[in-house]
């Protein structure tokens, strides 16, 4: 009796998981379905699971539409996401290491000044930041899109916590060998801390690729649009071309899905670090 109940419960749980998984996958299905359809197939009455003929030419056609500079936008997004990731990881890991390992009398003051910025998220201060960036003349430049976003208190905090728990014996051995802080950091610490670099790096990369408000405010000229801004602008265009929009949206998530599937365990580790403040 009890066994039968447990088995029924397990079957019910599996069934609900399958239903939920299908619901969660619907948006991806819609990207593919609409992206590879003709305009007529999308707007046809009734629902076909997939269009009668898959329109693979949508994939090349979308790159030729002058209203949707997809190639340029993808290039911008790649440049921004890669440089943001490298810069953030470099700056935050150095700072995190310094805070964790180099004794300095006022280190706590510095640490709390950094932590305090977490209380006022960048999104809320986009007006002041816009003011600063525009007075530097950085509107619609790569500098303006990247540099103000490089200083992530969250990333610094994660690195500091990680380095606090880093085995000190390794570094002590390096010191005995006569290495200073700098060389100890690059030769001993970095090679042995790859998981945390991967975790922070993937999370920053995803965030930078998907960022919208800051690129919208700063990337005003068409040449400076990221793929998110280009998609968003195209969505409100007068004669909206649905199949083109969907194929472009599909293309825009390919890099992330690849990163995601390859590095998922690092992302999971990074997410776990981001939520728990101990």
């Amino acid at each position: 009796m009890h066994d039968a109940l447990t088995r029924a419960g397990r079957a019910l749980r599996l069934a609900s998981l399958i239903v939920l998984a299908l619901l969660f996958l619907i948006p991806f299905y819609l990207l593919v379905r609409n992206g590879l359809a003709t305009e007529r197939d999308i707007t046809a009455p009734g629902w076909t699971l997939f269009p009668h003929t898959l329109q693979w030419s949508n994939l090349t056609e979308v790159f030729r539409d002058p209203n949707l500079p997809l190639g340029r936008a993808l290039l911008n997004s790649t440049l921004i996401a890669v440089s943001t990731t490298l810069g953030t990881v470099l700056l935050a890991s150095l700072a995190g290491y310094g805070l964790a390992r180099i004794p300095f009398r006022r280190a706590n003051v510095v640490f709390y000044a950094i932590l305090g910025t977490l209380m006022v998220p960048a999104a809320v201060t986009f007006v002041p930041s816009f003011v600063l960036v525009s007075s530097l003349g950085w509107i619609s430049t790569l500098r303006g899109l990247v540099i103000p976003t490089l200083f992530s208190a969250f990333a610094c905090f994660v690195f500091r916590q990680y380095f606090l728990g880093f085995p000190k014996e390794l570094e002590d051995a390096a010191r005995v060998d006569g290495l200073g802080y700098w060389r100890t950091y690059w030769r001993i610490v970095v090679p042995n801390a790859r998981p945390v670099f991967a975790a922070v790096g993937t999370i920053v990369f995803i965030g930078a690729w998907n960022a919208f408000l800051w690129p919208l405010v700063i990337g005003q000229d068409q040449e400076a649009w990221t793929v998110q801004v280009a998609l968003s602008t195209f969505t409100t265009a007068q004669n909206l071309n649905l199949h083109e929009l969907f194929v472009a949206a599909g293309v825009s998530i390919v890099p992330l899905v690849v990163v995601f599937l390859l590095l998922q365990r690092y992302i999971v580790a990074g997410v776990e670090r981001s939520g728990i403040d101990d």
Partner: protein
Amino acid sequence: MTAGGTEEAVTDVPAPRAAAAPGAEPRSFGARLLGPQRRNLWFWLFVGPFAIGLGLFTYVPLAWSVYLSFFDAHNTVSPAGSDFVGLGNYGAMLGDAAFLGSLGTFVLFTAFIVPATYVLSLALALMVNRLRFARAFFRSVFFLPTACSYVVAAVIWKLSIFNGVRFGLANTVLGWFGTDQTAWLSTTDPPWYWLVIVTVRLWLQAGFYMILFLAGLQRISPQLYEAAAVDGARPGWQVLRHITLPQLRATSVAVVLLLVINAFQAFDEFYNLLSDARGYPPYARPPLVYLYYTALGRDQNLGLGSAGAVILALIIAVATVVQARWFGLGRKEE
């Protein structure tokens, strides 16, 4: 003196090092600035670039914004002294029904999205955690939307799932049951747009919080469950209520804090779902959307926008401190 040494090992300091102890012997200003073993120098070499950048791109804009908020600054970031308006912008902002309405929109949005995400992500974590096979597969499926941007999700929600015309997915499905088409995003009575706005964020973020709950579940000792079984607790609701949920308290607090802070910053999905070639509708404007149109819209009223940013920053800072105090005290009692 070599840069760095073994001496910050916490244990007994060898005799020659004692000279570096503060006040042991008078040292030159330069030597004091560099610190023992030039550690101050090294500290700033590591931390300096980050700290300076953070100051420049967080504290400076904030200070500048506070300054601008006292001026009538249209289209300019360096207003003349004659444009000084004192607290006028703050008065205008707090007396503006649209600004207060945006705070109301945030409260309403939070009331929908926080419980919905909490329940769904916890349920997903509980179910995935007990799977004996295909666990990685289901975890990936629910986590995959995290890789999607709000813009892409808004495209799918606005133009396919909740498209107001008959070929939209929701309207197609409703059509099978003979229901009329619904213009999901432009109907204000009933406000169907909330369904669109809440589900898009729910889909995007539930997997993220599921991962946090899964991590929390992994930390619960199996012995607790064994003890509960010995005491005759029935598996299911009783165990969930008396073991699992109390053990997840720290995770739950973190999840709720993150959910509220993120809801306060909502911009992307509102902007992309609701604005069109004609602009943004007068309803469903959360604070950042309101601020965006005030400061960067046609008027470019940076003084007023700055006042709004300062008010929002204060609200979020005070809320964070209050919540941290509140939950922090609770945690110590455990």
